[in-house]
């Protein structure tokens, strides 16, 4: 999807969820690491544990919402739309431009030759 510049909010939301899952594991690791110390910083512990729980619930809610949306929107049929025709037209326009450039360079070369002679 990175090849097109699509402003697809749902895909971006799913990418944020992926980052949040990474953060969940990071938080869990920090909490356990903090517990392993002899002198635990209780405030950091509470903060990280709260962040962990909140992230897990947020991820669950978001993914449930996405699945609910897909249940409403999905059909069994494949999508048969395409942008082939406009892509072909654009390709032909670019070919016309290239051809014009080629011919212009020929004319320029001919003029230079005549000037030299």
């Amino acid at each position, binding site marked *: *999807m990175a090849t*097109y510049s*699509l402003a*697809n909010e*749902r*895909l971006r939301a*799913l990418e944020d*969820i*992926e980052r949040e*899952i*990474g953060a*969940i*594991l990071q938080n*869990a690791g920090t*909490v*356990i690491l903090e*517990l*392993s110390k002899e002198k635990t910083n209780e405030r950091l512990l509470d903060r990280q544990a709260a962040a*962990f729980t909140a992230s*897990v619930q947020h*991820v*669950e809610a978001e*993914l*449930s919402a*996405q*699945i609910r949306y*897909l*249940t*409403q*929107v*999905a*059909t*069994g049929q*494949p*999508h048969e*739309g*395409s*942008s082939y025709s*406009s*892509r072909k*037209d*654009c390709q*032909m*326009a*670019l070919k*016309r*431009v290239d051809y*014009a450039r080629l011919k*212009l360079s020929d*004319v320029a070369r001919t*003029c230079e030759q*005549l000037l030299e*002679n």
Partner: protein
Amino acid sequence: MAQQRALPQSKETLLQSYNKRLKDDVKSIMDNFTEIIKTAKIEDETQVSRATQGEQDHYEMHVRAANIVRAGESLMKLVSDLKQFLILNDFPSVNEAIDQRNQQLRALQEECDRKLIALRDEISIDLYELEEEYYSSSSSLCEANDLPLCEAYWRLDLDTDSADGLSAPVLASPEPSAGPLQAAAPAHSHAGGPGPTEHA
């Protein structure tokens, strides 16, 4: 939507499986995490020696941590599957993406064609001068019957019989230099001939 469409069995099953995977993975993460925290509590009385209990707790924590990581990995896979499903089956956004792409390509094509037409109009002026110069110079290799464009129109003006298959252009101006290109190009203001015309 007015009513829920009946999804085909496979899609329905697939979406239900996504839900199940989500619930299982989240439950696994939470349970394993709470169990690790509980195991971290040091008991005063143990059934086996402290060292053995310590080893057991150590191993249990390793396994639970591995379970948390596995569940996290499984969630990432679920997100990837959801992205794939979305790209293939979310028709509103697929339609929007196709429309956007069509618009971009059409705009590019129109831009190219507009620039080519502007180029054509500029080049036609220069080509006229080049032709005059070429055919009136000594390096011209054309035969006596092979008239240059400007000569042909001048002759046509003087003698209609020597048109020689050339179509008669509309000669509104008495000046021969203004004639030929007026018919070819759309309404343009190079009526004064090659000399005073300015390129924009």
